[in-house]
Structures are given as C-alpha cells and as structure tokens.
C-alpha cells in the first residue's frame, strides 16, 4: 500500500503531463490544419474547376503574409492586414491567370513551368522590397495572451485561428452546396462542355474562382504567419507541398474534402512530431500514398 501511495501520485503526474502534451499537440495541429485548409481549399477548386496546377499558390501565401504584415503594422489592425493580404494576393493571382494561364488551359506541363517561374519572380520581388531577414508576425495586443493547459500555455491567437476556420468553413460549404454560384462551379467541375452547352459562360466563373482562391491563400499567409513563426521568403514554399498532400487526401473540388484533409494532416503531423520525432516529415506523404492506393479520388473528392 505504501508503495502504491508513494508511486501513485508520480504515476498520475506522468499521465497528466502526457495528456497535456497530447492536447497541446492536437490543438496546435488543428490550428495548423485550419491554415492549411485555407491554402488547400483554393488550390483544390482551381484544380477541380479549371484543371490548373498552380505551383505559385504558395508564393501567393507569402505575398499575402508580407502585405498583411505591412498594413497591420501600419494600422494596428489585424483585420485590415488580413483584408490587404487577401486582396493583394488576389490581384497577383488575377495577373497570373489573365496574363498567362488563360492561354494554357489543359496544358498542364506549361502551367507548371509558368507558375514555377512565378514562384521565383514573386520571391525575388519580395526579397528586393523587404530584404532577406524573416520578420516577426503581427499579433494585436488583445490577442497576444495565452490559456493554460496543464503545465503549458496555448496562444489565444491559435484559438482565434481555429475559430476563424469554424466560421469560414460553413460559409464556403454553403456557397459550394447551396447557392447558384456553387451549382455553376460544381457543374463546371463535373462537365464543363455540358455546362457550356447549357448556356453557362464559365470564363467569369473561372476568373472569380481563381481570384477567390488567391485571396484565401493571402489570408492564410496573414493568419498563419504567427503560429508558423513569422514572415519569411520560404513561407509559401513550406506550405505548398503540404497543401498538395491535403488536396490528394481530401479530394479535389470539395470544401469538406479540403477541411478533412487539412485537419488530418495537421493533427497527424503534430502528433507524429511529438511521438515519432524526425519521422514526422513522412507522415503527410504516407497518408497521401495510402489514400492514392485505396481511394484515388480522395476521402471526399468529386468522382
């Protein structure tokens, strides 16, 4: 009895610490997953509707992050920063689509080459304007606190990111599944030729979807800068590979798919980081391979 009494509390403390570690890891994974969702949702729709593989999507994340940081610092408002980041990324996206990609529909190799070129150009423009040093992210003082989870703290801003995801996801799902615009987008993804025969002009829809996808990428850059440790020239590059994995896991052209894939990859990567350490790098891609083998259209992708 004495032994149990002596070791009992120690055992409980260990278990309690393990629980704290798991909870914090999962929450960090969810907040990372929401940022990934914003990046991957746009990528998924552009691929599904327009058949465009936009490698420069990550560079748009970085564009949004830098512009958002600049405006947020100048105005003291994260909302204005988010708006500016999203709009600038959207405008750059429009330039890429209208200036180049509109002539390259269905030419995927050319799309990859052109958008890959934009990755370098956009990165070098930012290098020229902002310099090479990473910059600290902007977090408003009102959101810079933290909540205590056992022996750890968890940033309030990460919880705000999760809440933004909770609000944005139903809105995007509603647009996709319950509006006329969503119906046209779905029709365009399922059978663009048939949609055209039915008198639907897909060109403005394509432009709007590309613009919105770029805006979401820009917003992801602004929101993701803080939990990902700041704004730097590699920010988008780091995210684009994971976003592609999210699209494969969740499926192309589906908000639910993008969310499911992003949360799975966010949470599994975080838990793998905690418990499998360096093997964490393989987890998103192993998940991707498993999905490709057993369900090539993704968990919730359009057939």
């Amino acid at each position, binding site marked *: 009895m004495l032994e149990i009494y002596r070791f009992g509390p120690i055992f409980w403390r260990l278990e309690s610490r393990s629980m704290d*570690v798991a909870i*914090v890891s999962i929450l960090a994974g969810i907040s990372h997953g929401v940022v990934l969702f914003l990046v991957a949702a746009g990528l998924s729709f552009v691929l599904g509707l327009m058949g465009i593989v936009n490698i420069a999507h990550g560079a748009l994340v970085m564009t949004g992050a830098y512009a958002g940081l600049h405006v947020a610092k100048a105005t003291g408002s994260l909302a204005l920063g988010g708006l500016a980041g999203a709009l600038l990324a959207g405008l750059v996206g429009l330039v890429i689509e209208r200036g180049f990609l509109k002539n390259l529909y269905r030419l995927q190799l050319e799309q990859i080459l052109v958008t890959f070129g934009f990755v370098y150009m956009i990165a070098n423009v930012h290098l020229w304007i902002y310099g090479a040093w*990473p910059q*600290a992210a902007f977090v408003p003082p009102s959101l810079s606190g*933290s909540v205590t989870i056992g022996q750890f*703290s968890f940033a309030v801003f990460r919880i705000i990111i999760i809440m933004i995801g909770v609000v944005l996801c139903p809105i995007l799902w509603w647009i996709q599944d319950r509006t006329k615009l969503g119906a046209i987008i779905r029709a365009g993804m399922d059978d663009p030729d048939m949609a055209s025969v039915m008198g639907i002009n897909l060109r403005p829809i394509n432009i709007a979807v590309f613009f919105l996808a770029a805006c979401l990428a820009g917003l992801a850059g602004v929101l993701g800068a803080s939990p990902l440790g700041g704004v730097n020239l590699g920010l988008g590059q780091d995210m684009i590979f994971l976003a592609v994995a999210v699209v494969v896991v969740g499926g192309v052209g589906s908000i639910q798919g993008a969310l499911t894939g992003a949360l799975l990859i966010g949470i599994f990567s975080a838990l793998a980081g905690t418990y499998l350490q*360096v093997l964490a790098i393989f987890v998103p891609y192993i998940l991707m391979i498993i999905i490709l083998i057993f369900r090539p259209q993704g968990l919730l992708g359009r057939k």
Partner: protein
Amino acid sequence: MKRLTVCLMVWLAAIFVVLALTLSNPQFGTAQTAGPIKIGGLFELTGFLAPIGKEAQQGALIALEQMGGKLLGRPVEFVLEDSATDVNTSMDKMRKLVEVDKVRIIVGPIFGGSQDAMGGYADKVRVPVITLPSGQNSNVLKNQWTFLAAGTDESNGYPMGIYAAEKLGYKTATTIGSDFSAGHEFVGGFVQGFEARGGKTIQQQWYPPGTTNMVPFLVAAKKADCLVTWWPGADTFAGFKQYKELNIKMPIVQPEDGGVTCNPAASKGLGDVIVGVYATVLYSYLAKTPGNKEFVEAYTKKYGVPPGPLAGCGYCSMQIALEALKKAGNDTSPETLKKALLGLKLNTIHGPLSFNKWRIATYTCPVVKIDQNLVPQIVAEYRVNSEVVKGKLVYSLEK
C-alpha cells in the same frame, strides 16, 4: 632532296606561325606572375541562407577594401558567384570559377551540403576552399583542400557544453536540433563538452528541416536544467516564438546562434524572448580582438548595423585568403599556396588563428549572453583544439 627541303621549310614555317601566335597572346607567360590575382567567392546570395550569405559577402568586401585591392603589387580581382544555397548550383559555379575564371583560391560557401560536395572537386583541381563559417566533419575526414576557418561545427558547440556545465551549473540537458548534418554536429559538440564536464543529456530530438510547427517538439521536451536548441535561420523565429507561446520555463542555450539570435540585423525581430539566452557565436562584434574595432566601424558605416556573426566570418576568411596568397608570393603552384595556408599565424578578428594539420582553425570562440537590450555580451572566450584520433574528431580546450 629538293622535296625534303620543301617539306622542312613547311614544317619550320608552321612552327614559326604557332610560336608567333602563342607569343603574341597577352596571356602568355603573364598569367602566373602578372595580371590580377583572382580570388573566387561563393556566397549564398539567394535561397534560404540568403540573409547570412549577403552579410558574409559584405564582410569579405570590407576586407578587400581595407587591403586596398592590391596584393604583391598586382590588382586583386574578386570573382563573386551566388551558390543559391543549392548543392548543384554550388558545384556548377565552382567549376566556372576554377575552369573559366582560373581563380587560385575560393572563399565560401556557408551551406554544409555545398561545402561537402565541393570538397571532392577541390581535391581534384587542387584549389583551396576557405569555408565561411565552421565546417562539417566530412570536410576534415574526407577532403584535403578544404580549410575550416572557424573550426568545425562541433568545435563551436563544444565550449557551450563546457560553459553550461561548469559556469551555469547545469546537470541535465534536453536538445532540439534541425535534422541535418550541421544540426547534429553543433548539438553533438555541445553534448561532448557537457558530458565531459559531468553533465547528462537526457533526451535528443531532431525535427525535419522545413518544419514550421515546433510545438510538438517543444512540448515533448523532457524537463531538464536547460533546453539546448539549434535552429538555423528562419527556424529561429518559429522556435523562439512557439517556446514563448507555450510558456516553457527551461532556459535556452544555443551551441551556435543559427546566425540570428546574436545578429544585430535580425535579433530585434525576435524580441525579449531571447533575453538571457546563452550561445556560442562564430564571431562577436564586441570582441576585443586585433582589427575588430576598425572592421566594426567600417561595416557599420557602410551597412548601417554592426556586423553579424557571418559578416565577421566573411571578413576573416577573406583575410586568410589574402594573407596566404601574399605568403605564397609569386610561386603559384597549388602546393605552395596550401603550405602557406597551413603555416599561417594570424592575428584576426577571431583572435590568434592558425590551421592544424587537419586544416581546422584554432580561434577564439566567444560565449555570449543576450542582455536586456538584446546585445550579445561576451561572458567567456574559449580556444578549442580539434584533432583526429582513430578516424574521429576529438576536442579539448587550449591550455
């Protein structure tokens, strides 16, 4: 007979033409002892190491300027190339520097992968490469023409381990490092020094390069007297930011500052989370070493901030290259240049510096503590001897 005479005349004419063309070439006979002395520079001007690559280049240029751009009465031509923080690009650029530009010595690069790849080629063409920061063990154990101007990565981590155990009184350490060779070697140096002084490393974690979410690794860190981190470049921002978010109380020590924590151009962005952090640095702008004051003044005047660790390394490596070329004089054989490098005894901004037979520099390595104004104040200085014993690198403090 007549036919033989004609044939002889034709041969003589041909030889005359060849000789005339050769002698009329301005390069002939002058390339070795006249014309500019060419030094190659391979710096990370783009890619993920661009911030520190640019600084290293700026430091090297100050060394050239202070020397007046001339050596042995001949102009010095600095042929600068961007390695793009990429192994393949580094190799292409090195071939160009050696085969097209005909440089005699190369300063750079920073990226360990590039250093590693270039080492074999340097051995083949017998062109000395003076690394910018510390170098990896493979450069010592595999290659013969790579000179490690700031020691090995391990030799820089080693004094931090000694200091943590002896002066800070830490008994246990848990480590987090980027999972590539430099990460393993900086942290490995710390562990060697720490355990040599009775410390115990209770856990070692390695995160995949490119990780931005450090939370899983930070929360998994076991409780110890100190948290040892090696976060290169932008990882430093993610690491410190998330360490602060999680309100972890373990003090951080760094077996090299990743080029950021002690860099006046970048540390402001990290904020007060770095106050109290201990780190070894490859160079400190506060060091009271010969020529450092003049270098810091010149650099600050030109670039607006005091030089960071890599700026100091760029300056020192260029200083080494220039002194070796001067010592070799007009004898341009690669072996003479290598011998000159091995025989150098310099007073540098890194303190007294010389290479041992394994081409590893012994220099003064500062341990710093970041104060309230984010200034990395020097709290100790160590000189580490590196030697190869039974195929392994072993370190000890210079007596």
